[in-house]
């Protein structure tokens, strides 16, 4: 299953400074599991929210072939 992953803000460090990558997974998995594969601790307070295809979703949602997953660091202020 191919998923396009976009890391926001300083999370790009998990892709060696790149913001986008297409990741291939052997089997279906949840966003939480994908986040772990990328190297980000899903329980970290530095992790903000996740969005699939431009819409915020909960982290335990499953991913589908062709999804665009966006991972935000925690942000505040406005």
């Amino acid at each position, binding site marked *: 299953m191919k998923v396009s992953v976009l890391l926001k803000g300083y999370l790009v460090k998990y892709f060696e400074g790149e913001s986008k990558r297409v990741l291939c997974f052997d089997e279906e998995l949840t966003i939480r599991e994908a986040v772990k594969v990328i190297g980000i601790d899903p329980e970290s307070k530095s992790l*903000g929210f996740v*969005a699939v295809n431009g*819409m915020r979703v909960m982290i335990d949602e499953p991913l589908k072939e062709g999804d665009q997953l966006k991972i935000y*660091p925690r942000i505040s*202020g406005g």
Partner: protein
Amino acid sequence: MLGYQNKVLRINLDNKTYSTEPLNMDWAEKYIGGKGLGIKYIYEELTPGVDPLSPDNKLMFMTGPLTGTPAPCSGKLAIISKSPATGTILDCSIGGHSAIKVKYAGYDAIMFEGKLDQPGYISIEDDKIQFIDASDLWGKGSHETEGILADKYGTDTTILSIGPAGENLLPISCINSDYYRQAGRGGIGAVMGSKNLKAVTIKGTGAVTVDDSKKMVRKIAEILREDTTTEDNIWAYTDGTPGLVEACNDGGILPYKNFSDTTDVKWESYNSESIQANKHGKKGCGSCGLGCGNFTKIGDAICEGPEYETIAGAGPNCGISDLETIVKFNQVCDDLGMDTISASGALSYAMEMTEKGIHDFGITFGDKEKLIDYLYLMAKKEGVGADLVMGVKAMAAKYGGEDMAMHSKGLEFPLYDPRGSWAMGLAYAVSDRGGCHMRSYPAAEEVYAASIPPYTAEGKGKLVYDLAIYNAVKFSLIFCDFWALGLDRMAEVMTLATGKQFSEEDMNQIAERVIHLARAFNQREGFDRKDDTVPKRILNEVLKSGAAAGQKIPVGDFNKMLDEYYEVLGWSKEGKVPDSILSQL
């Protein structure tokens, strides 16, 4: 307590005299400074029911014990009065360098009373106070005014001024400083205008004494290194608030066309990357370790920012995606001295009213030329502009469309749709100065951190309370909103600056006191539960698009959140502060 100058400068505009008096240290111990101490002075000194635009209203500049020290994010000045827009208490904070100059001039606070008989400005240079004619400045924009005064007094003098919007007493006018920084909301500029006070120039050559400077500098270095200039905060430097455009769009809270829906397919036209592509420079306030100010220049349009609120307000909420128009809108509002949130809110309401055929304001969504042209009409109260500057509450009372008037207590909504962040609706409803995101910002938890489900009333009263506690302390010490450290770290810095031992629990108690006192002011003016509400659109109309599609805040859930908020604070079901608490304030 150290950290204070122990001096208030009181300026009587009626007879052009001034005096100094000791800061009330009993009050300072209970309310610290900034928002809290300013509200205490205004609460004690204003007659209930006073007309906010009469000479009997007062205008106070208030610093805090950390102002002028190297404590990060401590360069903000609180400006407190009674709001001409809402009739509530009003405290704004303004970045730049003005707070530090007030402190270095030897004052904790400056209180302006009465009214000048002719337009004038006040020059403050340490203990030398001058009343100067401003007839040649009256009518000029804030940028030109500041430029003229900067040429006269030099760059080591800070200037606070109003534009034509403040002179013409608009309830959507602001006070400007450092050209591009504003005390923006609630018509604070009109209070200054009502006093015929065009500007205040301040130069200070003094310093601030703290209890343990060596320990404090070491602590500040540690905070800067470990907690401020860190990965978690670096977005404030790299992106600033424009980074919220994408997050709010994905999060389902970016308002579109006067909150008729959320999300915009054209969001990439005005997101952080688009702004970075037109970046023209950087700027930070005094005592700041983050430097969030980004200058953007497109064609002839230039501004510091635009910040998220201005982008979303003049952009998608007005059906506009052209970044140059948004930058121009920001630039013109700054120069005219107009609050970008309320100005764009009035325009988006007018656009929807016109499109729905309820009243023809002559402007529809996406009309980027009129968006700018109307600002000039508004500042001069000419033609349709005279209606728009009343604010959406008064416009709806005159022309109808109450459900489309997005405000709480007469203050236009910031740009987060509460249907995608229910606690945000409660935060707007109970904010002490009307629809505002700076008193409690639960979108950070419900959306950005996904730490709590957004579409439930459960626990939201407590959430809004917890975040209001945090902000009440933050704005009383007084820190910038980007100070991201907990009450424990605030207590540590306060202890080192003042020499008085502060604990996290002390910070908590001070914050509660500030919230109670702001509420007590509004209660005295007749506000209660009936005023703690949001427009029916939020309660009745479901969103059609985005992550929060299908959502509204059902009335029962809204009331449940409100009940819980009152209960946590110990207020009555009607939202009244009981006598047992009032007597302790």
